[in-house]
């Protein structure tokens, strides 16, 4: 078994926000009819969290569910427990028409911490980041400059960004430039 490492070896940058590569995160992508009670039950069993409504995120300490589309959810579990969670999920889905795959090693994840977190995202993604328009408990799939990504808010000053591992360097550099201390806009 190879030793799993973060895409950029745990890079960090201090600017308008404290930007850091998140520790390894277990991620399971699930495609199924999210309105099906059996699917909701299986998600709860695997993550301990309730399936949120449209564009919702229910995440607590690296464990939870993100609404990705009407038939897709991203399940977050501790990295070490992802195989067990996937087995549990597959078992509780039973004969339900669904597809669940461990995508942990195909993703990169970054965390932005600080009062300017909204501003850094607003510089890069075509999303209304005004307080009230985007709040903790929501998830947004969008693009950051030239690459696809998704993000959710843990609290008013903490935002987590997830993207494909192949563009981890691009995403980190992009977020770093947008967090340059000399580039404050102070809009929000």
């Amino acid at each position, binding site marked *: 078994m190879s030793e799993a490492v973060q895409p950029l070896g745990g890079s960090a940058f201090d600017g308008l926000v404290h930007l850091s590569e998140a520790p390894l995160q277990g991620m399971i992508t699930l495609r199924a009819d999210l309105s099906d009670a059996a699917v909701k039950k299986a998600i709860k069993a695997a993550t301990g969290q309730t399936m949120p409504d*449209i564009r919702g995120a229910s995440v607590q300490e690296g464990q939870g569910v993100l609404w*990705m589309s009407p038939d897709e959810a991203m399940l977050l579990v501790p990295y070490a427990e992802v195989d067990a969670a996937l087995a549990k999920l597959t078992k509780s889905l039973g004969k339900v028409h669904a597809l669940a795959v461990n995508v942990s090693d195909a993703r990169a994840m970054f965390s932005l911490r600080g009062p300017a977190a909204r501003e850094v995202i607003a510089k890069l993604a075509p999303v209304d980041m005004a307080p009230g328009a985007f709040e903790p408990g929501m998830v*947004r*799939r969008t693009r950051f400059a030239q690459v*696809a990504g998704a993000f959710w808010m843990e609290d008013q000053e903490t935002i987590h960004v997830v993207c494909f591992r192949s563009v981890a360097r691009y995403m980190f550099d992009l977020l770093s430039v947008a967090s340059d201390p000399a580039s404050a806009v102070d809009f929000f």
Partner: protein
Amino acid sequence: MLILHCPYCGIDAEETELHAGGEAHLTRFGPGSSDDDFEGYLFMRENPRGVHFERWRHANGCGKWFHAARCTNTLEVFGTYSAQTTEPPEEIRKILAKKRPGWTWRDLK
């Protein structure tokens, strides 16, 4: 900047989150069809000045395909609707009847 409402995730997505998918409501003609039908399916497209129906994909978003009705002349968006249909739904036709009385598009009116 074109902004389309994605009927699947409810986001008012701006153009850079979207990918254009060409003309809507094409009937596919494949193996066994006549040469004329196959040619029409592959190559013959509407190029209207006014009401048009298109396919769009929320590519940098929920990933779903959907339909949009809009005006190529004024860029007004009349509405967006589900991909699971072969023709514009009643609510879109109502809007068109009001805003562009007498509109036609292929064999629709």
